[in-house]
């Protein structure tokens, strides 16, 4: 187990370097950021040259990458155009997005898995058909539509909650955005759990457990659900990374100053340090989430062992 974890951690190093390299080059390929700073007017060449010099943009691309990575290992993520250090931006943005992601994941786990078990146990019954249809509707409606509609209904019409989230983004204000963010994944979790449960109800070990005379509740939770959760855990694990980076739409609608919003601003302003810094952290989140998922397999299914 320990050796497996160390091997996986070592594998992360080339993935990490490769992905930052790709991102760095892609952001660079978007064009020269200095021209955009001047708006619609032509940049004064001397000023533009001075800004390029200050931002280390007057060197070759590989030299810039080496310079950037060198600073990165010293803990310096560079400075955004508005003069804020990227580290500080990340310090402000990540806690907000992590809170939002937690809310979303909790919704996915509680609602998604419960509905999945319910429908999986009652295959073909009206409740199953109903929930399946509902998930289909949720999956087919784009997030920005559900976002604006729910914001309008609950924020403007019913006034149950403020339509926009305040800068400190406390948990209670994140419930609606978290639900919007979770909805599509929630529908997938429901469907995955349902299929998995439906298959495993026919499993030998379930029949054995029932034959042993175990209470129904214990059969479902200890035996059936535990074995059925593997695909669901895989999905939720990868979803953590996707939710953190992909919350751009939800964060914009609900005025949440999180990772998605900062990434969007960075891309819009062609601000390489912001984009590369945030994506680098997101890559790490992805890698670690994947590792945790793999380790969880062993917990859920005793047949899986890592050497």
């Amino acid at each position, binding site marked *: 187990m320990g050796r497996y974890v160390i091997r996986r951690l070592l594998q992360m190093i080339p993935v990490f370097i490769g992905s930052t390299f790709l991102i760095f080059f892609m952001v660079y390929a*978007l*064009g*020269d*950021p200095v*021209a*955009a*700073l*001047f*708006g*619609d*007017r*032509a*940049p*004064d*060449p*001397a*000023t533009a*040259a*001075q*800004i390029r*010099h*200050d931002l280390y943009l007057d060197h070759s691309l590989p030299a810039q990458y080496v310079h950037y990575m060198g600073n990165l290992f010293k803990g310096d993520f560079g400075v955004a*155009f*508005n*003069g*804020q250090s990227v580290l500080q*931006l990340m310090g*402000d943005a990540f806690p907000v997005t992590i809170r939002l992601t937690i809310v979303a994941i909790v919704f996915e786990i509680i609602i998604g898995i419960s509905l999945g078990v319910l429908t999986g146990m009652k295959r073909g019954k*009206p409740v199953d*058909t*109903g929930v399946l*249809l*509902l998930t289909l*509707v949720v999956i087919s409606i784009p997030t920005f*539509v559900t976002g*604006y*509609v729910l*914001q*309008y*209904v609950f*924020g*403007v*019409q019913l*006034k149950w909650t*403020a*339509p*926009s989230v305040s*800068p400190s983004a406390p948990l209670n204000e994140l419930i609606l955005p978290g639900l919007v963010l979770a909805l599509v994944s929630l529908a997938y979790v429901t469907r995955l759990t349902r299929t998995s449960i439906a298959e495993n109800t026919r499993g030998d070990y379930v029949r054995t457990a029932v034959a042993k005379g175990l209470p129904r509740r214990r059969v479902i939770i200890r035996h059936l659900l535990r074995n059925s959760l593997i695909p669901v855990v895989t999905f939720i694990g990868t979803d953590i990374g996707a939710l953190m980076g992909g919350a751009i739409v939800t*964060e*914009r*609608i*609900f*005025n*949440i*100053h999180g990772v998605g919003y*900062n990434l*969007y*601003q960075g891309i*819009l302003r*062609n601000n390489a340090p912001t984009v590369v810094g945030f994506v680098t952290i997101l890559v790490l989140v992805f890698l670690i989430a994947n590792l945790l998922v793999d380790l969880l397999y062993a917990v859920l299914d005793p047949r899986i062992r890592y050497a």
Partner: protein
Amino acid sequence: MRGATRVKWAAGAVAVALTAGACGGGSSGGSSGSSNGVVRASWGDPQNPLEPADTNEVQGGKVLDMIFRGLKKYNPKTAAAENWIAQSITSSDSQTFDIKLKSGWTFSNGEPVNADSFINAWNYGAALKNAQLNASFFEPILGYAQVHPNTSGATAATKLSGLHKVSDTEFTVKLSSKFALFPDTLGYSAFYPLPQAFFTNHAAWLAKPIGNGPYEIQSYTKGTGMNLVKWDGYKGSDAAVNKGVDLRVYTDNNTAYTDLQAGNLDLVDDIPASQLKNVKSDLGSRYINVPAGIIQTISFPLYSSRWNTANSAKVRQGLSMAINRQQITQQIFQNTRTPASDWTSPVLGDAGGFKQGLCGQECTYNPSKAKQTIQQAGGLPGGHITISYNADTGSHKEWVDAVCNSINNSLGNQNACVGAPVGTFADFRNKITNKQMNDPFRAGWQMDYPLIQDFLQPQYYTNASSNDSHYSNANFDNLVNQANAAPSSSESVSKFQDAEKQLVIDMPAIPLWYQNGSAGYSQNVSNVFLNPFSVPVYNEIKVK
């Protein structure tokens, strides 16, 4: 059983659809904000640090206009440049200006506003090593070439030789050439004075800028918002009538609009395009839509062999006549643009140089004449043209497609014009700056100060800083020089209009429309209006 389920869900779907439909025509709920005399307004994150000479976009400019006052102030209603901190600005030759300051002005940290506050600020803004985006505004001042040499890294002087301190309340400015309207440019934010605190502790100043205007900054969280409070020590006659302004950064202007409807916000100065259809029913008279100092054009790369032939000016005139401006401003922009008939802006007023219809029939929709003119000139270069725009911001695609459509219909050729998107604004600007354009491209010009000079000289004078077309005409240059050397403002303006008539003949850029400024406000506030730069005049807003 199954059939019944389906019916149930169909009913559910209808209910959802009805709820969604109801949102479109929804009314705004009654607002009962507890703002305590403070205006809650939407904001965007300023792109650059909040230094006067480094702020060239409206979000940062908004704050600077609240916390600073300069030598002159543009009257928010008439756009006239009025002496503010300046007691008088006099010149006998339009080249050396004697500036006397009113006494008693201070910064909010107690430092006096004196001649040094201006001289130091301007030297800082002009110096190359500070890489200020607005450095070129100091170009007219003698000695600019020495503090801001054309090659970076060259040893530069640190002080503009044209600035001389006479006393604490008087200094002189010598320009490198005659420029009659120079005093009227001094209301621009790049010319604001700076306190010593700016130079002694720069980082602290940037974290919480100190100025001499009607407001002072109470707290500033970058990327999130700013709280400004009325500064009681303010000397000017335009002190704030409210207790302060809370600026909140919104991730999306739709969200700000929703917050306005929900009563959580008092002022939105950027109505989202998708709400333009509803805004009148939502806000009624609390919706503002007035012309701003912004003109949109289609500029031509006159350096390209496609556009520098003897006949190409005629082709450009033909294209101008082929565009149905009226229809596009109504249908695409919901009347938030006004069809253009000259190269300036209505906010200048007639005295300032705006002249409706100066362009004449060359800017009037006339499809048959357009077709005829282009045919006589030998047709479009290569048989068709493209119009470039940046696809990332500003939703330019819709109107560029509409303009092309209008051209195609006028010429009776569905392949005459297509839009050519460029991925990002940065890339788009790079292509223009590096002279890589072969076909027309969209251009927008937002005035820096309400002067006809600012609309014409930077864009059309030979080798001027923003002459993206690389237009060069001796007669135009000559008339601009005469206008700058004119002894009075009115003579200067009339010479500029003569120069503008040359643009009708050469058509280096087709005027499309003047952009309007828009804003919406809650029932909580009153006396909301926009200044000529389409920024709300915050200090005049009354809170109920």
